[in-house]
């Protein structure tokens, strides 16, 4: 009987130890970006990606966003840098919370270019070079065919932004409740950017 018990104990012990080792192997993958710098590095290039904009339920004047049918705003985000309109994020229809993806493919362009695409051109964000004291202007519009309403216009000091996710809470009297901006180093590998996209940041 002793040998029979020994056999069961041997199998159970190996399985137990093996299982424990496998669990410990997986554990370190939980921590990410622990060594990232607090703020962006001057003279480096970063993608400036507006990931999320949440509107307040009413305009800054306390009115409905769309007086005709009472629908939520049609968000359009415009970025100005060094005196130029640098980028805009596409319209979102009738949403209070608007999100954008880090990658965006124009299917029409894809077809007309013979089905080939440059992955860098699919990044849905402009690239900015960080200079100390320099800022960008972000405009958040409710895009209407007749009269567009400016929900928020803000200056953002680039050197104050952190690498990764930045959550900005605008003043209470604006039409916007919160904005999320991702600063992504230009040299970030494509695979990591894809991971950022799929992990929601």
């Amino acid at each position, binding site marked *: 009987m002793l040998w*029979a018990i020994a056999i069961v104990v041997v199998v159970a012990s190996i399985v137990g130890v*093996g299982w424990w080792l496998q669990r410990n192997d997986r554990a370190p993958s939980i921590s990410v970006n622990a060594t990232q710098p607090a703020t962006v590095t001057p003279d480096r290039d970063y993608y400036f990606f507006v990931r999320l904009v949440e509107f307040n339920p009413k305009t800054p004047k306390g009115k409905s966003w769309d007086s005709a049918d009472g629908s939520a705003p049609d968000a359009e985000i415009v970025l100005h840098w060094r005196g130029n309109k640098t980028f805009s994020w596409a319209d979102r229809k009738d949403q209070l919370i608007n999100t954008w993806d880090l990658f965006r493919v124009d299917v029409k362009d894809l077809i007309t270019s013979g089905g080939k695409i440059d992955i860098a051109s699919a990044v849905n964000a402009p690239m900015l070079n960080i200079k100390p004291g320099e800022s960008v202007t972000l405009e958040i519009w409710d895009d209407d065919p007749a009269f567009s309403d400016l929900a928020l216009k803000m200056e953002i000091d680039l050197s104050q932004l952190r690498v990764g996710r930045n959550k900005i809470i605008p003043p209470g009297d604006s039409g916007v409740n919160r904005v999320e901006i991702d600063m992504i180093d230009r040299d970030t590998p494509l695979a990591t950017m894809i991971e950022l996209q799929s992990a929601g940041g």
Partner: protein
Amino acid sequence: MAQIRHPWLPHILRLILLSSAILLGVGLVGPCMKIIPNFGEFDSWIRLLKPHAGKTSEYSVLSGILAMIDHGNIGIGLLLLFFSALFPTLKLAVMAYATQTLSTGQRAGWLLTAAHHTGKFSMLDVMVLALIVIAIKGLPGNTQVQLGWGVWAFAGSVVLSLVGSMVLHRLEAEI
């Protein structure tokens, strides 16, 4: 009480059964299958738009079965758990008990019959593995399945248990 003609035979048999048990434990938790998904001509697009779908996954026999149970296939998962983990362990334990009985010069009786009948199921677990591999090999888009060393340990355990079964019958014949 009868004497055994080759007194070293029980020691050899114990060594075989112990080796089989070690290989079984290692085979259950060692890497068994690595599945490398491929989506054919749409591969780069799917990796771009849905990266998690393109991730390589690695399973041991045990983690594969537990994943199966976790995904709701409780019946087939428990069946595989029985035939791949519990059943081979019990089979080796019965054979070890029979060896101990025979080494004292007594007949093993029902133990030997049990060991003989359970031996018939020895290759069932390996067959299940083979079926899984064939099933995934048949997927479109060049999805690849690479076998890990866990399979060899598992197969080694099965082979040793078969050898053990033959030695056990030889031992019984000597009494």
